[in-house]
């Protein structure tokens, strides 16, 4: 007996979403639940996890306040610096560059992604280490400058590593921008500066928001850049987590911090979304 069309349709739908649903459940939902359970457990005497029900791990969170604070300060600052560098580049690519070379120039922004971030960050360790820039400064008489293992070095690494991720969404939003608006603005006698602030910038805000949110959120979980360019001194939550699992073997506390980090990310994201909605809502622009 052939299936009723309705039933068949339902089955097809289920078959289509089942693999992804299963994957999400087994490797996202279940692990997250396991982590929450662990967060209420105890550290075993030799390290690891031991079943228990205690709020001690969450009570101990203030001991990582500095790492949370560092992350919550440096991530937005890093994203903002990224934005300052990225915007002019995106603007140039989308509006000023010769259309003939535009594709090549845009590709060149993405190409660095194809060399391992680790290797590129290692190159920065060399550039900032005393054989690099401090050595050059020494030649002109500025001795003993220290750049590596400073917050500045970490910020530089962040701007470097995340710049392409910031340029691309801004570029996309600027490229979609209707050029006739700019011409109209100019025809109506607006100076270039006021055209920029009155027309271009507001219309590119969705791209800016996407870029800032993307970079900030990725930075909240950053580990490598502070580890390599901060010398263990500039500490992010990601570094605290790696430490708890791979040094002090405190799985329950690590789980509690990981859960907290997720909560922080969700808060940051919802604030960003709210701002984005406000911006897009009043100006009627698609976010994506």
């Amino acid at each position: 007996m052939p299936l009723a069309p309705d039933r068949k349709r339902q089955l097809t739908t289920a078959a289509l979403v089942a693999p992804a649903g299963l994957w999400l459940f087994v490797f996202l939902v279940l692990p997250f639940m396991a982590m929450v359970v662990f967060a209420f457990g105890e550290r075993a005497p030799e390290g690891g996890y031991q079943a228990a029900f205690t709020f001690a791990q969450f009570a101990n969170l203030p001991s990582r306040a500095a790492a949370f604070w560092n992350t919550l300060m440096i991530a937005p600052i890093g994203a903002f610096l990224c934005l300052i560098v990225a915007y002019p580049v995106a603007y140039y690519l989308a509006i000023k560059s010769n259309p003939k070379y535009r594709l090549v120039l845009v590709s060149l922004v993405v190409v660095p992604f194809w060399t391992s971030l680790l290797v590129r960050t290692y190159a920065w360790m060399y550039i900032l280490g005393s054989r690099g820039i401090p050595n050059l400064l020494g030649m002109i008489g500025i001795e003993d400058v220290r750049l590596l293992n400073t917050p500045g070095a970490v910020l530089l690494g962040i701007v470097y590593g995340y710049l392409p991720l910031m340029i691309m969404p801004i570029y996309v939003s600027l490229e979609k921008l209707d050029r006739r608006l700019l011409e109209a603005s100019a025809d109506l006698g607006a100076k270039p500066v006021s055209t920029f602030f009155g027309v271009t910038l507001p219309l590119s805000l969705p791209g800016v928001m996407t870029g800032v949110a993307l970079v900030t959120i990725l930075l909240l979980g950053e580990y490598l850049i502070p580890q390599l360019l901060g010398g263990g001194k500039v500490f992010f939550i990601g570094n605290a987590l790696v430490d708890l699992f791979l040094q002090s073997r405190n799985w329950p506390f690590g789980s509690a911090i990981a859960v907290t980090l997720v909560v922080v990310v969700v808060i940051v994201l919802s604030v960003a979304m709210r701002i984005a909605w406000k911006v897009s809502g009043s100006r009627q622009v698609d976010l994506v």
Partner: protein
Amino acid sequence: MRALVTFVYLFLYAPIALVVLFSFNAGRSASEFTGFSTMWYGKALGNTFLITALQNSLMIAFTSAVLAAIFGTMAALGMQRLSSRGRAIFDGLFAAAIVVPGVVIGIATLVALVEVFSFLNPALASIWPGDKPPQLGLGYGSIIAAHGLFSLALVTMIVKARIASLGRDIVEASSDLYATPFTTFRQIVLPQILPSVLAGFLLAFTFSFDDFIVAFFVAGSKTTLPIYVFASIRRGVTPEINAIATMVLVASLLLILIARVLMQDKTTKTQTGE
């Protein structure tokens, strides 16, 4: 403006230039240039562990990206047909898979799998007929699963956006003409979404190939290229690492170039066809 943009490009490429330069270093160190030589390319290709790490990374990136591309596309198609409640649940889960930091994904996967294995392995041993029951452990499977999570969400998001822009009428028109759903899919929908699927696949591949932090937690005894590079930074980088990085860069540049040429061919053809 131009000067500033030039400066940013220099900033982006200076470290890469340095990496490439030192791959031709004659000395042992990746930080002191003592002469020109291509020997590190030979050494890199002859280094079993480096090559194994590269193969592992390629295999893991390819597998997780293929699975993500297939399941992600299926999910994107299926989600259109779900109730709004079901769609909201999936949207939320996919968003979570993208936003939750890699370090947390790595930890959660590690914690859950270690727990599951500590329960499964004795169980398996008790029912195993032979002497040597298989020991489940972290390895390729756990890395592919954890990488695939992010990739799956990525592909689904991209393909879904594309489907939304397609409009339902084209699909409905085809069904009205009594085409079977599969024919509709193959002849109408698939060609339209294929570029997005490919874009999703490429992004997923790149993400997995360059990921360090997730694999760091769930790789078990397996070494991926980023894990190998990280370990090398700790034991002192030799120009072998620069050589392999340069080779990967050149290979990917070639791939981009080929893709560009193929796509250009296609666009010119469609343009002349119009």
